[in-house]
């Protein structure tokens, strides 16, 4: 039997533990082990992707040799291989980027930060791979605990913001667990495939309705679906850049993935769309969230806060894909996961590089950076274009599929929301692009004015390009944005059309 499914999380866990033990002696050794573990896991995920694409069907792995539903089952199918590839790729890039940036923003924390980052990735990939509802909860909490620790090591307000996130996350986890309980006591199993075969007789059961509501409510809290997003902006703003650059792209996506998994593979077809209006509710909330996030992002002056509000809007695109509930719309939502992960990650990493070089976090202070950091800022421009959705970049295609989905669903409102939000993204990103390609402020009067106002001074001579360990990951992500845009047909054809097959496309 192929061991690929278990190797992805288990290699990560193994390297996290080695990284912890070595890190107690030397933080650098711990980092090296962590990088090797994530690399190994990424290569395993690539191998798994080849296996799934050539084999054409899911690899099912019975944990401990016990046949499901007695034991726990791991499922490596088109959808989960897509998620694990995304998680391990972002993790690999960010963990290579992290040392200098983290040392600058959170000194003295490195030795314990590497195992925490790898544990975060292990938890997320465990969530993607599992075929068991309770096992999903356990791995969701592993990733959540690691995320709380990493987010809390940022600026002054970071612990308070993280504590609020923790309480919301605990409530979400509790609702999810309660939903699992309702399903278990009505259907008698927690295995996803087994549930899928037993639930069709129970569609009228009120306990199953409550279970569906509770599961979606819990995951929506963790996914920061509007109006349950209130914890997110503070958390992302105060966390270290490298941590935001890892958590913002993949953490909320995995909760969205879990909702999609429930929607496609656990509940009977049509349960979320016809029997209960869950999908359309998610869709409408997402539409509101897109507008809300984009409008508030325009109003922000802090670079990271702008990105945080933008994240609220962008995760809602995935929710819109769920709400459309037709194959092409859901493909758009899933493709937007990878696009947004790449774009948001590179934007946070650029923010960290700017902060390392010049100490600047506010957008008006970024004048003149286009001249002193040409490569970084070129990547920023690519990412900004992708956020708006200009054709050769990745961002265009996911919005294109979503628009096709809204046309198929005949929903003019959502069509308009996507267009308006693209326009607003254009407003807030081109504001930054304009600022960074403007001449630097060298006027002494302006410096004094900034001092008087208590802001950070606009730098006289902004630093040059960041060191290679920071610039390399940024450029790789920039290239990846273009590559995903150009080769999106491959991703859609090889993985996503199979993943949404249960919708009957």
């Amino acid at each position, binding site marked *: *039997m192929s061991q690929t499914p278990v190797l992805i999380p*288990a290699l990560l*866990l193994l390297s996290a*533990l*080695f990284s*912890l*033990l070595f890190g*107690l002696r030397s933080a650098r050794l711990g980092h090296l082990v962590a990088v090797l573990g994530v690399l190994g896991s990424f290569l395993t995920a690539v191998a798994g992707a080849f296996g799934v694409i050539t084999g054409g069907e899911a690899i099912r792995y019975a944990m*401990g040799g016990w046949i499901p539903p007695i034991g726990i089952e791991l499922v490596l199918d088109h959808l989960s291989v897509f998620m694990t590839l995304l998680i391990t790729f972002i993790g690999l890039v960010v963990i290579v980027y992290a040392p200098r940036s983290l040392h600058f923003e959170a000194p003295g924390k490195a030795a314990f930060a590497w195992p925490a980052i790898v544990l975060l990735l292990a938890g997320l990939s465990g969530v993607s791979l599992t075929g068991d509802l309770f096992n999903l909860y356990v791995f969701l909490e592993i990733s959540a605990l690691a995320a709380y620790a990493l987010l809390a090591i940022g600026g002054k307000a970071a612990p308070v913001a993280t504590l609020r996130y923790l309480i919301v996350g605990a409530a979400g986890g509790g609702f999810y667990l309660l939903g699992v309980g309702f399903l278990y006591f009505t259907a008698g199993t927690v295995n996803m495939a087994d549930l899928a075969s037993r639930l069709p007789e129970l569609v009228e059961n009120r306990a199953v309705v409550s279970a569906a509501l509770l599961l979606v409510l819990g995951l929506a809290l963790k996914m920061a679906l509007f109006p349950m997003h209130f914890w997110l902006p503070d958390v992302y703003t105060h966390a270290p850049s490298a941590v935001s650059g890892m958590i913002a792209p993949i953490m909320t996506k995995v909760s969205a993935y879990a909702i999609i998994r429930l929607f496609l593979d656990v509940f009977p077809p049509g349960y979320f769309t016809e029997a209960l209006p869950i999908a359309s509710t998610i869709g409408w909330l997402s539409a509101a969230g897109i507008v809300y996030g984009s409008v508030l992002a325009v109003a922000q002056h802090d670079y990271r806060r702008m990105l945080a509000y933008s994240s609220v809007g962008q995760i809602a695109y995935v929710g819109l894909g769920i709400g459309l509930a037709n194959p092409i719309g859901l493909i758009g939502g899933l493709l937007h996961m990878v696009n947004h992960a790449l774009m948001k990650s590179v934007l946070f990493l650029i923010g960290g590089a700017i902060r390392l070089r010049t100490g600047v976090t506010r957008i008006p202070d970024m004048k003149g950076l286009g001249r002193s950091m040409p490569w970084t800022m070129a990547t920023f421009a690519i990412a900004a274009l992708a956020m708006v959705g200009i054709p050769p970049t990745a961002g265009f295609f996911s919005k294109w599929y979503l628009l096709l989905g809204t046309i198929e669903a005949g929903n003019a409102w959502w069509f308009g929301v996507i267009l308006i939000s693209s326009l607003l993204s254009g407003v807030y990103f081109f504001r930054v692009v304009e600022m960074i390609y403007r001449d630097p402020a060298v006027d002494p009067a302006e410096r004094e004015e900034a001092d008087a106002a208590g802001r950070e001074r606009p730098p006289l001579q902004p630093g040059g390009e960041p060191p290679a360990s920071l610039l390399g990951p940024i450029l790789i992500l920039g290239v990846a944005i273009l590559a995903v845009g150009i080769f999106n047909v491959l991703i859609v054809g090889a993985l996503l059309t199979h993943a949404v097959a249960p919708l009957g496309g």
Partner: protein
Amino acid sequence: MTGRFESVFLDVVTRAMVPLIQVFAFYIITHGHYSPGGGFQGGVMLAASIILLRIALGEESYRRFPREAGIWIAGVATLLFTLLGFVSILFGGNFLEYAYVVPGMDAVELRYWGIFFAEVFIGFLVWGALVAIYDALVTGGVEA
């Protein structure tokens, strides 16, 4: 909470109690097969014995059980648990399939010992991790 209370009675009772608690905790860990209990419960008791030492003996307890020891024990025990899972892959089973851990032995017997060692590892890691959490909390969040 790290300060030592000046009480001979407390001192003597603690010194006498801690080994008893630890013996009982090991009994709980190893008898998970037959009676209620197992790694988690026994591990918590081991941690409680160390916390009792910390409260009653103050500084002396750090000589008996150093600050770094908690996370070391937890890390090594979890690592051994993971390796137990990988060993069965090595001999042709699935992850954590105890029946394959030692080739040639009876499957039922192997599962029995697999459960036993899993419980022991869990006990040790819970012990180490909880003491580490306690030690971190009593610092009061001192950040330089």
